[in-house]
């Protein structure tokens, strides 16, 4: 942006202010300076042309929604100012799979370790190696419950207790709000997530993500 080069009129030199100088002249002086100052404020940079099209695409929030998908907001209403009670979202069951007793109720339970061939073949157990299998966590008789090592049956809503049996350090951090994600109010009601919301219990390693686009390099920033 170029500074105004037009100099103020000669009248603006203070040594040229004799008795004859009137208020009007002073006002003209201020008027002129004012115009110059305002002109410089208003003068935009000239339109940039020929910006490198590929790199100059700004990724706005409209696109952000679609890149982001719904999974990460977990139904969060970011505009809400309500200070209500936040429930833990329900356990992330596969669609139509719960209650398990709907099928298992009529089946004769079988506790021999085996590869599942008739149902649940899509489950690939990638959790703790070969020695892990279904009935380490699912109860043998009541499939609608999970089972702790000491025999206690717990609902799926309390699955963190099951995870905490082995992952004690993470469990402790999660309860303190250090591990995992909390949303809501730093000084009030918070919404917690279950371990299973981020880590599939059958394959708990966090899956890689596609990163959102890098920022635009300064040399491509154009208006």
């Amino acid at each position: 942006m170029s500074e105004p080069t037009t100099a103020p009129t000669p009248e603006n030199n203070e040594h040229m202010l004799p008795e004859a100088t009137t208020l009007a002249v002073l006002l003209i002086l201020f008027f002129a300076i004012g115009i110059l100052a305002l002109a410089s404020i208003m003068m935009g940079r000239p339109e940039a042309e020929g910006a490198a099209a590929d790199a100059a695409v700004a990724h706005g929030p409209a696109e952000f929604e679609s890149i982001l998908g719904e999974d990460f907001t977990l139904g969060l209403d970011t505009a809400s100012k309500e200070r209500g009670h936040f429930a833990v979202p329900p356990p992330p069951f596969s669609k139509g799979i719960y209650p398990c007793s709907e099928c298992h109720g009529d089946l004769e339970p079988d506790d021999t370790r085996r590869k599942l061939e008739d149902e649940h073949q899509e489950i690939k157990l990638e959790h703790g190696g070969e020695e892990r299998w279904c009935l380490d966590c699912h109860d043998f008789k009541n499939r609608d419950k999970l089972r702790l090592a000491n025999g206690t049956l717990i609902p799926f809503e309390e699955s963190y207790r099951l995870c905490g049996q082995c992952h004690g350090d993470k469990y402790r951090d999660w309860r303190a709000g250090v591990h995992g994600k909390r949303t809501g109010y730093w000084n009030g009601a918070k919404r917690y997530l279950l371990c299973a919301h981020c880590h599939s219990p059958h394959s708990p390693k966090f899956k890689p993500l596609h990163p959102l686009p890098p920022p635009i390099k300064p040399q491509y920033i154009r208006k």
Partner: protein
Amino acid sequence: MSMTPDLPCSGSCAGGGVAPPPPGADADLPAGVSRREFVEASAKMLAAVALVSGCDTNVEEFLQKNFRELTPEELRQVVARLEKKYSEAAGKPVTVTTTPPLPNTLFGYGLDLSRCVGCRRCAYACARENNTSRSPQIQWIRVLELDKEKGVDLTHANAYYNPETVPQEDKFYMPVACHQCAKPPCVKVCPVKATWQEPDGIVVIDYNWCIGCRCCMAACPYGARRFNWGEPDLPAAEVNPHTHYLGNRPRMKGVVEKCTFCIQRVREGRYPACVEICPVGARKFGNLLDPESEIRVIMRQKRVFVLKEEIGTEPKFFYFYAT
């Protein structure tokens, strides 16, 4: 500003229209015109110029005082004026709050370097929440990609990484935004006191007072401040209508801006937007004065460090390793 040598201009006129009349000028004024009346008349004249020339800087805006010097009544008027202006531009009601700091509150932020996967969702959620310009693009959060082998060595940082998936095996990621220093160099250098630290520790900017000199950007050791080089372009449909005067209200060309820990949210008790969006829960936030807060638990139990500790800025942004 270059002055043509044959037209010397003494100091009193170089400063522009708001300079008081030169000493002794009173004597030259017509009888009955006091100095005060003269200054007022000149100011009105300037304002009239602004109106005639179609500049959208209006009279009140031009004469507005620093945020901290506004009386409650003046503040009310300023807010009303801004809300009207922003609502008209956005085509929907935009509120400008001036929520004061909460008592016994000093905000602190934690970022778990052993969790962050470098997905940049925080940077985009921040832009949406804080009404930053989409073009020219302004983002307050920079996510740096660093080599695991070299550790926290910023000379090898890459902000423009773009692999198919993150995290990459041999890399880790370090998001950087304003560290809300307890001893902020940016505040020290600002020649007009347009930026200052609030009692809850947030370093804020009065955009209407900022003269755009960018001294603060030079002073910031974390590269956290951004400048509006062009007229900010923020599509009306994407305007977040819930704003704070010292935070995410729409900005204008020629002013500096930066992260405020989402002042419009945190002063109402909510978590910042980046905390809420992070898919891995790497971001933690809370009150440093509350021993039971998440951030204090982290400071007690985890390995914590601040960036460039040796320069004595005392950031309230703590990087840590949960595992």
